[in-house]
């Protein structure tokens, strides 16, 4: 599996509030696939043009798990903008993901 996929890389225009997202998965499990699909869909809807998604497969790069304090799979890490947030699970609950990414304020 390709580990680094820049699905949308129109970086110059959206540099101020660009979302750098990293999704950690472990192989092509149902949960991983679901998470990737959910994330893509969500980003296209809400963050069009201002996000970078990096998908990291820990089966290939296990040494990367420590750096971002990953213990659950799948985990979405929002590095930028601050603060760092983590969302674990298959991202099936769109509302929760949006709140987690600070795109929508918590109710």
């Amino acid at each position, binding site marked *: 599996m390709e580990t680094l996929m820049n699905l949308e890389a129109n970086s110059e225009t959206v540099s101020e509030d660009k979302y750098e997202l990293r999704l*950690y998965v*472990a192989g092509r499990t149902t*949960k991983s696939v*679901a*998470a990737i699909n959910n994330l893509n869909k969500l980003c296209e809807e809400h963050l069009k043009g201002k996000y970078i998604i990096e998908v990291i497969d*820990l*089966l290939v790069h*296990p*040494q990367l*798990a*420590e750096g971002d*304090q*990953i*213990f*659950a*799979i*799948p*985990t979405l890490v929002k590095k930028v903008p601050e*603060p*760092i*947030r*983590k*969302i*674990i*699970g*298959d*991202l*099936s*609950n769109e509302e*929760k*993901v949006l*709140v*987690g990414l600070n795109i929508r304020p918590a109710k």
Partner: protein
Amino acid sequence: MITSNKSLPKTETGITGLDEITGGGLPAGRPTLFCGAAGSGKTLFSLEFIVKGATEFNEPGVFMAFEEKAEELSVNVASLGFDLDELQRKKLIKLDHVHIERSEIEETGEYDLDGLFIRLGYAIDSIRAKRVVLDTIENLFSGLTNQSILRAELRRLFQWLKDKGVTAIITGEKGEGSLTRQGLEEYVSDCVILLDHRVTNQISTRLLRIIKYRGSVHGTNEYPFLIDDEGISVLPITSLRLEHGVSSERVSSGVPTLDKMLEGKGFYKGSSILVSGTAGTGKTSLAAYFAHETCLRKDRCLYFAFEESPQQIIRNMRSIGINLQEHVDNGYLEFNASRPTLNGLEMHLLTIHKMVKKFKPSAIILDPITNLITVGSVSEVKGMLIRLIDFLQAEQITVMFTALTLTTIVTEQTDEGVSSLVDAWLLVRDLEFNGERNRGMYIMKSRGMRHSNQVREFVISDEGLSLVDVYLGPDGVLTGSAREAQQLMEETGAVLRTHAVTRKDREIERKRMVLQAKIESLKEEFESVTDELNKSYVEEELRKEIMEKNREQITQKRHHGDINEPGSE
């Protein structure tokens, strides 16, 4: 020692004492649960397991910390002499800190803990680890909300660890009414060890208990353990059975007259001797003499003083004629003076253990054990002394305890209740009589030898200690000046008696002489009477004779007159 079950392979922990009570260590290739309240030493136990594995058994280990950061851990255990950074550089251990920040995490939908598995697997593989510690995995529960996923994943994790073949320690915080807050014991079924930390009378004691150890015999008691600058030590280090060798060799008590009461030979080597008595009865002096004697034989002696400083003891003993300083200088005698309240009982026991191992004495003295009561209850002190005696007997070290008895009833037990444990018990008592206080000593018991049942007076003088026969007079036992007075009186009496006897002899002599004189005079009297009687008898005879003669003459004359001269009348 418990014999280890051959069918169950075990991994030595390298932690002093733990391998003894588990019969060889933790179950190899399986997870073991260490549970206990906060601050009970779980982290340290598991960390020492990893460090010892790396340094002593060539088994690299992974330490996965859910609580402390790796750097914090390194700093925290540096005081114990563990250099985690160095070990990490050598790839002997791997520290991994799993940081779970509740506020950063949002959960949505299905997930698993593969990330943790991968991380752990990677750490294990990178250094070929044989040992793994997860400290404290329960922190996952505080960071994640989906309990059912967590539980399923934990079950999978422990199975996965088993499959990996690593010996693992899982730590868990003690919960209310259960061993761990999250019921980890239900996943880890092979070996569960409970750590406890109790504070009684401001003095803390750490305790360890093996709750279960599947497939292996193990000690079931609570074992005290200590954390000091050399890491963890679990006690006892001694065997659990009474099967140590015994010696029939004898050692002198240092007081010849006391030896005489013990078949003339003294105590058995490796036995335990209790000297008890009220205050000021000379217990320390007796102990010092024993130490002195041991050193004179060129044996080593360790003196644990709980009441006086070494200098004080040396000075005081000089006054009764022994120079302990000399032995200290020659290296035969070593003092260890500490206040009982300095440490808990176990710390004292450990100090004794360590010093004995280091100094290798053939005799040790504990003076007095009574003061240990201040740090523990009677039963705790007794427990400690049992373990101590056990250990010393196994090492064939003669031990002398002194104990202060608070009352003067003879039949009492000592306050520590150790009288049944010791082999010989000497009792020094105050005998108050006649306005003075003297010391009386007797042997309450002495296992395996004939011993005198006599009370002896225990005399401490400039020349040293000695035991003197007490005077058993019509008024009871006399000691001290009363005994001396009695002795003097006896001497006087003897002189007087001889005098009286000679006077009586002379009297008899005189009586005899008087009698003799009387007899003489009576004899004289008798003779004179006899004479008188004889005289009258002779006169009678004479008269008779003369009268007869006269009659004959007359008769004759008559016949003649008729014929011849009728007129001659």
